């Protein structure tokens, strides 16, 4: 009961935040089957552990109060009791029974979530962790993007869960968007799996949950759950090569003649770098540097000029460009819708 109240309080606090923004990350406001199953299991576990807490905690408090030394005690020692096998047996067996119940409830959920069959309509994609950003690939759709994940909404009428394979290019990271699913680590040399079927369109946020180096805290995650129409439009847009307008030709020239293209790719151009985020549709993203700053012209200029000023320790070096070069490259990137 107590812990149910605790859960409610936490959920309530979180809801207050949710009213003003969609950046809620509470595990108590699930929007997808795995996170909802975990939420329901957590209420059961909270109820059981809360019950134990009330009973045993009550015993401790009662014993401490009831058997305290009083000023009018005669100073003699209380009766010495050395133990009782029956009592020991009872407080061994009862916990064992509780463990059995908890374990069965848990085991059922482990298999239900982890071994869920993959429906034919599922969207398959993969996430690759990098220090300190996310790469997302949709092999069947021929899309590569970064940091802002788009997946379709999944309804009972039109179930379209997302099945994600996860791995890492360098160290261990962990994909955690609390309202959609429990976290799964991205481990180099290993492929893990995660699925989610968000029921409501909108933005869901999260971040890397395994310490991965100096900028671990700024490895943020944004998941856009799109309506089927939005998602189809997004896919169509992403499949286009990077838009090239003559107006930004100077910026493109700088991009391709400086070291930018060693790390970044822009489809349809000579830039094929693999170490940094794919920038083909960079301008359509809301944030830059894996969520470290909003994607505005001013921030982008600052970022290109001196990445450490936004994300100290980021692996993108400052190229010591002139202000004109920075402006031109920024203008070019801003055209990459």
């Amino acid at each position: 009961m107590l812990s149910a109240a605790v859960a409610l309080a936490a959920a309530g606090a979180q809801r207050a935040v949710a009213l003003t923004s969609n950046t809620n990350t509470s595990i108590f406001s699930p929007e997808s089957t795995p996170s909802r199953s975990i939420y329901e299991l957590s209420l059961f576990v909270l109820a059981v552990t809360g019950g134990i807490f009330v009973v045993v905690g009550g015993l401790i408090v009662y014993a401490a109060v009831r058997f305290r030394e009083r000023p009018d005690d005669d100073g003699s020692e209380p009766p010495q009791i050395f133990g009782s096998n029956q009592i020991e047996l009872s407080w061994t067996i009862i916990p064992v029974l509780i463990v059995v119940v908890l374990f069965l409830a848990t085991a059922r959920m482990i298999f239900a979530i982890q071994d869920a069959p993959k429906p034919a309509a599922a969207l398959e994609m993969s996430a690759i962790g990098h220090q300190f950003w996310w790469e997302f690939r949709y092999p069947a759709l021929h899309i590569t993007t970064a940091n802002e994940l788009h997946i379709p909404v999944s309804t009972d009428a039109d179930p379209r869960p997302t099945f994600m394979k996860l791995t890492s290019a360098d160290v261990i990271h962990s994909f955690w968007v609390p309202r959609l699913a429990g976290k799964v680590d991205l481990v180099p040399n290993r492929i893990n799996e995660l699925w989610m079927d968000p029921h409501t369109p909108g933005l869901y946020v999260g971040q890397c949950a395994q310490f991965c180096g100096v900028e671990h805290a700024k490895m943020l995650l944004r998941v856009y759950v799109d309506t089927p129409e939005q998602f189809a439009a997004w896919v169509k847009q992403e499949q286009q090569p990077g838009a090239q307008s003559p107006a930004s030709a100077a910026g493109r020239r700088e991009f391709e003649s400086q070291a930018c293209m060693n790390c970044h790719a822009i489809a349809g151009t000579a830039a094929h770098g693999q170490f940094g985020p794919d920038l083909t549709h960079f301008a359509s993203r809301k944030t830059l540097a894996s969520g470290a700053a909003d994607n505005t012209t001013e921030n982008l200029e600052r970022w290109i000029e001196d990445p450490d000023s936004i994300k100290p320790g980021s692996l993108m070096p400052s190229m010591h460009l002139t202000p004109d070069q920075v402006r031109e490259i920024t203008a070019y990137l801003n055209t990459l819708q």
Partner: protein
Amino acid sequence: MADQVLTIPDSLSVSPPQIADETFLERLHGWVVTVDHKKLGILYVLYSVFFLFVAGAEALCIRIQLLRAHNHFLSAAVFNRFFTMHGTTMVFLVGMPILFGFANYLIPLMIGARDMAFPRLNAFSFWLTAFGGLLLYFSFIGGFGLYGVGSAPDVGWFAYAPLTARAFSPGHSTDYWALALIVSGFGTLGTAINIIATVLSMRCRGMTLWRMPLFAWLMFVVSGLTLITITPLTAAQIMLLIDRYLGGHFFDTQAGGSAVVWMHFFWIFGHPEVYVLVMPAFAIANEIIPVFSRKAIFGYPAMVAASAAIAFVSLGVWAHHMFTVGMTSVSNAFFTLSTMLVGVPTGIKIFNWVATMWGGRIRFATPMLFCIGFLFQFLLAGLTGIMLSVSPLDWQLHNSYFVIAHFHYVLVGAIVFNIFAAIYYWYPKATGRMLSERLGKWHFWLFLIGFHITFDTMHFLGFMGMPRSIYTFEPDRGWDRLNMIVSIGGFIQGVAVLIFAVNLVWSYYRGQPAGDDPWDAWTLEWATASPPPEYNFATEPVVRSRRPLWDLKHPEDPDWRYEQ
């Protein structure tokens, strides 16, 4: 029969410790070359208390940085060093040495021996441990080599591969971390061997294993567990160094090594390590709760059995730290079950302590206050542990502030509380003077309040999705206010610990003289002078029950009539 005669009174007739006119240098020399288990025990405790202050200061810096979103008190790099050093220090330079310090000081006294089985090994182990600590902290100036700017390890206290590979951790900071733990690990192994040998071979006449104080029993179990768990840690550190300098590929994922293998090695050490730390805290409660409840411990054999069971089961739970690394569903289910099972013997312990208090006459002196705080917090820590063992729930809560809250409930709420209890309880024995009860109560209440403000709040941050190890957080997540509260609680704890430090120093000079047996206790260490002479007991005591001093004080109703 020889042991019909109780010879404890004789052991009290000792000549007063000789106080020679020694110069400061002579006394210092005496402490450095000592092989006396009592002096080494005190050295261990002082060493740990020193590092408690250091690592506590690091924690406070961390909390200042997290006072509000996008704070700039510490840089990302310094923050990462501080939380790595805070964790490593608290576990290896505070938790382990202080508990082994108590074992060192108390076990020979409790079992009626004159010293540990191997006094020289004992001194050697202490100095290895001390050197390990020095090496770890030297990294602040030597981490990038003597010619560069120094830096401390910044890979987290569990140092997951491949973040520790040279590609991701250049310089020497990770080497300092690995070498310091290898060195102090050897010290720990030496002490564990010593405790096992002492318990098995140095007990006084009449003290069978079943009459040994529970403190000694638990330390015996802990030492056995230590021998099993430190070994894989040391092996892993050596493999890490081979990877870094000899071209090995154990954990080098770029060359086909496995990051998960490091986790297995680390946690097969790391999880039993929690029990290595918490069982000495149980051991302390086993001595203090009966004395201040004025009753014999309830269910002595069950307590011993539960300790052995915890040690055994704890060797099979390590992968509950790895529920998110992509183990199969069957493995996840197995480690869920084994982890939940630990709850059974720990539950038995809690029930036995409550039953010991039940029907007693509880004196609320400072040691008992800390022990009751321990009971309550350990109960909650156990229950949040059950929640984390539910692997689907762990997929949400793993590496979140909920986990931080959970293990600080164990490490601070249970272990540090009982360390304080133990210092208040045995300080009179070691120094001959009582700690101030008045300052002690201030210390207790402030620390209790600060503890709950900090760590209760952290659970909610975990529910709200805040991950650990982040040097700053986004203002739009709604974590600001709770982080502020957590930090305020941290500072209240800091003040409480300062009061404790004042108490330690002030009472050493001005405290009330303690006498031999200030708490009216029942184990053998209270049968000798305070502080005890170098030889502990003038003649070997002979005991007939688990509470020899009870028998002495109550000849009309001795324990040996009832014990079997």
